[in-house]
């Protein structure tokens, strides 16, 4: 059996798990409201001042960053394995890792910048 030690795997899996839990808990309600109910007018969109106070609050920013960063790593881990297994592109392993985890890192940096610049 080939021995390919990847001591980073536990970290990636923990990030994937945390991201899966965070997105599962928070996103359904947010997608429903922000993606469907408000644009379609089923419910009144929050007025600007209220939303501004809410979103710019330091705790909100922290939670938002946490959810975004973890969800991105959740996507990176899951998507990488989907391409790896679903399309059998094992030979592109290095490229896949760079695109997926690299993408998550870049996304997290962009998120931090947008939230705290």
């Amino acid at each position: 059996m080939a021995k390919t030690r990847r001591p980073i795997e536990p970290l990636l899996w923990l990030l994937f798990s945390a991201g899966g839990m965070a997105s599962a808990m928070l996103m359904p309600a947010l997608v429903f409201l922000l993606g469907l109910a408000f644009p379609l007018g089923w419910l009144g969109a929050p007025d600007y001042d209220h939303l501004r106070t809410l979103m710019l609050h330091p705790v909100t920013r922290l939670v938002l960053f946490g959810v975004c960063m973890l969800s991105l790593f959740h996507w990176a881990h899951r998507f990488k394995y989907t391409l790896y297994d679903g399309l059998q592109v094992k030979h592109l392993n290095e490229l896949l890792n760079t695109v997926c985890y690299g993408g998550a890192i870049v996304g997290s940096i962009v998120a931090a910048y947008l939230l705290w610049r």
Partner: protein
Amino acid sequence: MAEQITMQVTRYRPEVETDASFQEYEVPCPKDWVILDGLNYVKDQLDGTLSYRWSCRMGVCGSCGMMVNGEPKLTCATFLADYAPGPVKVEPLRNFPVIRDLVVEIGDFMRKLVAVKPWIIRKDEKPVSQGEYLQTPDELDEYKQYSMCINCMLCYSACPIYGLDPQFIGPAAIALAQRYNLDSRDEGSPERLELLSQHEGIWGCTFVGECTEVCPKHVDPAGAIQRYKLTAAMDWAKSFVMPKGKADA
């Protein structure tokens, strides 16, 4: 006169052909016959050249696993009449090399079982004079489910990861490792983790969950693997906080 059902059985004779084909047999279909009964009827009455494995005919030996209409099943525990009016397709267990007809090569599986060190590992063995290792019913319940595996390899057939990468250690082997890791008498978790923390160990699993669905003994290998991932990840995290050697196995 009992009904008949058509069985489409894979034939592969390496001495005369390079690919597998199907051969059809008409077998009786009494209510209480299983697929294995049908195969035995073929072998006894119709075509003695058919090759297949079976032993206990009661679902405890793990020898008779085959694909029945595309699903991995124990042929001694699958009723023929359930597939009436038929035809019912019987193929060798998926994801394993086929030696002949319905017989697959299981060497890889056997080696993996040994590789996870499926025995009680202790730092210090208690001498026989000091008596047995004691275990409470609760401690037994911790690992009992994982000890029910009959090594039938249906889970390996259901696992797409194993199909894609035969180096993946696989559901039954990891469940077996857990059977010992969770045994209160065992102290060998770190040793097993060494093997299982590689990419072809637990981390190759993407929790498809089909292994648990097809297991005839309700071992739940998928659950065993996910639990192990959590344990391994926690151990990894702890190793940063606590110096090596102090961390719990």
